[in-house]
């Protein structure tokens, strides 16, 4: 069956019926983002692979728990990937605070050139939005999301009251949403004829 024209949400519905080709299609759409995220957090290939594999299998097993009214499929999937990576980063005591500089950019290993260009555009948009956040908000978001630190650990590490950390995270997410909301992230991503500009 041709699945490339289906929405992410439709693919999740197919997973519920045990269709592996829908899982393959989801991997083709989000595998690279998922792996890059896990690698960014874990900085180790084997651990990043474990996190991504476990996350996709969680999606496979729990597709019936996805509630389309509550979240986009991509949000659901990436939340699961992130949670797996956080679990591993905490268990392996791999949390780091130093900046991350990958040795090599991906030579877009899968997907079409158009997909790769689209992904790059998304990445640049979010990176740009992050740069425009006030420093202390960006710091709180990055240490929590990529670093895997809990809010209490952040309070201790940054020498701030817990309440301050909570409000920085909240303000950071709210500001980030504003910065990203002028152009919808992910929208129309998988419509082949859609221009990305």
């Amino acid at each position, binding site marked *: 069956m041709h699945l490339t024209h289906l929405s992410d949400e439709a693919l999740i519905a197919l997973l519920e019926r045990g269709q592996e080709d829908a899982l393959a299609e989801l991997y083709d759409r989000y595998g690279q983002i998922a792996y890059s995220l896990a690698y960014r957090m874990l900085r180790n290939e084997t651990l990043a692979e474990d996190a991504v594999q476990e996350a*996709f*299998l969680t999606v496979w097993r729990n597709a019936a728990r996805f509630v389309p009214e509550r979240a986009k499929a991509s949000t659901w999937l990436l939340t699961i990937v992130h949670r797996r990576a956080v679990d591993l980063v905490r268990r392996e005591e791999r949390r780091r605070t130093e900046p991350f500089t990958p040795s090599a950019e*991906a030579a877009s290993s899968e997907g079409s050139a158009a997909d790769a260009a689209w992904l790059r555009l998304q990445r640049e948009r979010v990176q740009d939005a992050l740069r425009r956040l006030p420093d202390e908000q960006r710091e709180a978001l990055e240490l929590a999301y990529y670093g895997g630190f809990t809010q209490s650990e952040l309070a201790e590490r940054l020498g701030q009251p817990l309440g301050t950390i909570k409000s920085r995270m909240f303000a950071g997410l709210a500001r980030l949403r504003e910065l990203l909301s002028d152009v919808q992230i992910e929208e129309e991503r998988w419509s082949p004829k859609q221009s990305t500009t």
Partner: protein
Amino acid sequence: MEPEAIHDLTPAYALDALDPHECAEFEKHLRHCERCQAELAELQEVGSSLAYAAPAVATPPALRGSILEQARAERANVIPFPARRSRTTWVLGTAAAVAAAVAIGLGIWTALLNNDLGAERSAHDRVADALAIVAAPGTQRVGLTGGKGLLAVSPSGQGVLVLSDLAQPPSGRTYQAWVIQGKTPKPAGLFRGGNTTVVPLTTRVPQGSIVAVTVEPKGGVAKPTRTPIITTRLS
């Protein structure tokens, strides 16, 4: 934790930045707090956009295949409940688990058999046969639409319907199972509901055929007169 303070955990939860204790407490709260559910949905969407900002690294070439292989291996054991009744997934890890699930309702079924069939073979034997089919390693198991349970079919085409939480049929009526291949439904057995009902089908179930359940007048009919309440397809 103070009642109001728990709402403040939403941003940290969206970023997975709670410790396990806080996380459990927040999830408990989340179940009945619509305000936090709505806020979380928004914050998670923004939060997950951070995933896109991670510098791109090439995925290991073997990862895709390894995920799909594992998923395939698990598929036989994952039997979804029909969405209409429940959105949870019934994961049956092993054949033994299937047998155990079936055994829960056996007392009831055995009683039904004794009353209704008075068969020449003992109810016990029939139960044992049906269980053997459900639990056998080569057996294909598929979920149902319209009801909780599963259809188990042996490699030779012997079918067993296992239904749970099926209400008793209205008085003067019975449940009737059908095997439909092409356009011809063949009668495959009469039964009542109960906590768990095990129905050995009296007609072989070929690949690609549909198994359906209708409510019919007592004694059964030769052709279905009603729309099926439960269906599944063996593919």
